[in-house]
């Protein structure tokens, strides 16, 4: 298996190096997407399937779509950085030495770190958390307050983007590229199926709200790209869209307050009802993650166009 590890390690270093060092922004973004895919394989190899699912949908899919759309807004002269004059050798040597020195120190430190781990502690409280899969139990019950704040961070990001500028009008790609809308239409049932499957599976196996939300968000970005979700851009649906975006956070807050009323601590879910609470939060988290990923993709406030 070490051969596979070596291949993955070389692929990760090669794609990251090409992304950061070679001239040309488009090439850099393409390399970043390849890097995301390699990272997803590395997560599988390191036995982190939840992370692999989220990384494949977000790191390789949505980040790349965001970057490519932003590049498409720039004129061609800004898109391709002119290859700067070759750096003289005396600049290159200290930079390489610095990279190697930092990497060496970091490597030695990481290898010397103690690995305490919370394996037993988590396993001890797992039966009363309402989920059998430890990662889901941590995300939605044990450290649910972190996930609540994370949804709040996403909402803040959407608010920041919408306050900056008006949305980029939807690209009518279907006119020139007829294959794309067909692909999006054919794939959409599959995206929905994967979403429900991950949600249902999350309580007892890898899956859950984050991969489900990421997969549905990636499918939604594909539909936005083909102009199939026109309502997100229309003024009439603006209010509805705002309510939908906040709904996940509101439901989360309601759960936290419900926990406060029933057990006396904020977000303290009563063990006998924890399964239902987790189901409700899981659906809300997944849907709001998907919707907010799509809202990022608008790059601004929708609904202002005539």
């Amino acid at each position, binding site marked *: 298996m070490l051969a596979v590890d070596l291949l993955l390690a070389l692929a990760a270093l090669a794609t990251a190096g090409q992304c950061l060092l070679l001239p040309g922004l488009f090439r850099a973004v393409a390399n970043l997407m390849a890097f995301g895919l390699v990272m997803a394989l590395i997560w599988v190899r390191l036995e982190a399937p939840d992370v692999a699912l989220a990384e494949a949908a977000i790191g390789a899919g949505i980040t790349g779509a965001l970057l490519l759309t932003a590049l498409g807004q720039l004129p061609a002269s800004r898109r391709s950085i002119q290859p700067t004059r070759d750096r003289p050798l005396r600049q290159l040597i200290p930079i390489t030495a610095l990279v190697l020195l930092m*990497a060496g120190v970091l490597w030695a430190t990481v290898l010397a770190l103690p690995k305490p781990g919370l394996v037993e502690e988590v396993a001890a409280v797992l039966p009363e958390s309402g989920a059998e899969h430890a990662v889901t139990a941590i995300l939605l019950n044990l450290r649910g307050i972190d996930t609540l704040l*994370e949804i709040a961070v996403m909402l803040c990001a959407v608010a920041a983007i919408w306050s900056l500028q008006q949305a980029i009008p939807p690209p009518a790609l279907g006119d020139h590229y007829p294959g794309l809308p067909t692909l999006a239409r054919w794939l959409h049932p599959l995206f929905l199926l994967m979403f429900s499957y991950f949600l249902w599976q999350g309580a007892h196996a890898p899956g859950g709200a984050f991969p489900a939300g990421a997969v549905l968000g990636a499918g939604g970005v594909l539909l936005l790209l083909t102009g199939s979700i026109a309502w997100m851009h229309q003024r009439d649906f603006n209010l509805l869209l705002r309510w939908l975006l906040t709904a996940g956070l509101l439901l989360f807050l309601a759960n936290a307050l419900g926990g406060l009323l029933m057990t006396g601590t904020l977000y303290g879910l009563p063990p006998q009802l924890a399964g239902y609470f987790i189901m409700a939060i899981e659906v809300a988290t997944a849907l709001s993650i998907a919707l907010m990923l799509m809202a*990022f993709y608008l790059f601004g406030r929708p609904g202002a166009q005539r």
Partner: protein
Amino acid sequence: MTHLFSNIALTTETLFALVASLLVALALVSVFTARHLIRRLLALNILSSAVFLLLVLIARTADGTDPVPHALVLTGIVVSVSTTAVVLALYLRRYRMKPPC
């Protein structure tokens, strides 16, 4: 320095720890030396991926896989795509106000 590395066997953990360290160093240097702002954003993305890799490696303890860092990394991936989106929107806005940037 050499005695630190003298008794390291090449295993999955040590190999990916080395990869993560190299990625952190490369990305950190690029964040400060890259000329184009979007290139710095790419470097930040790679930096966060490398940190996630370190976290997942620390999660592999002797008595099983610790799920807490996995949950942290899942949250981190979503927060990092939020940061990317905000930075891109800021960049486009800045570009429209005053093109050469």
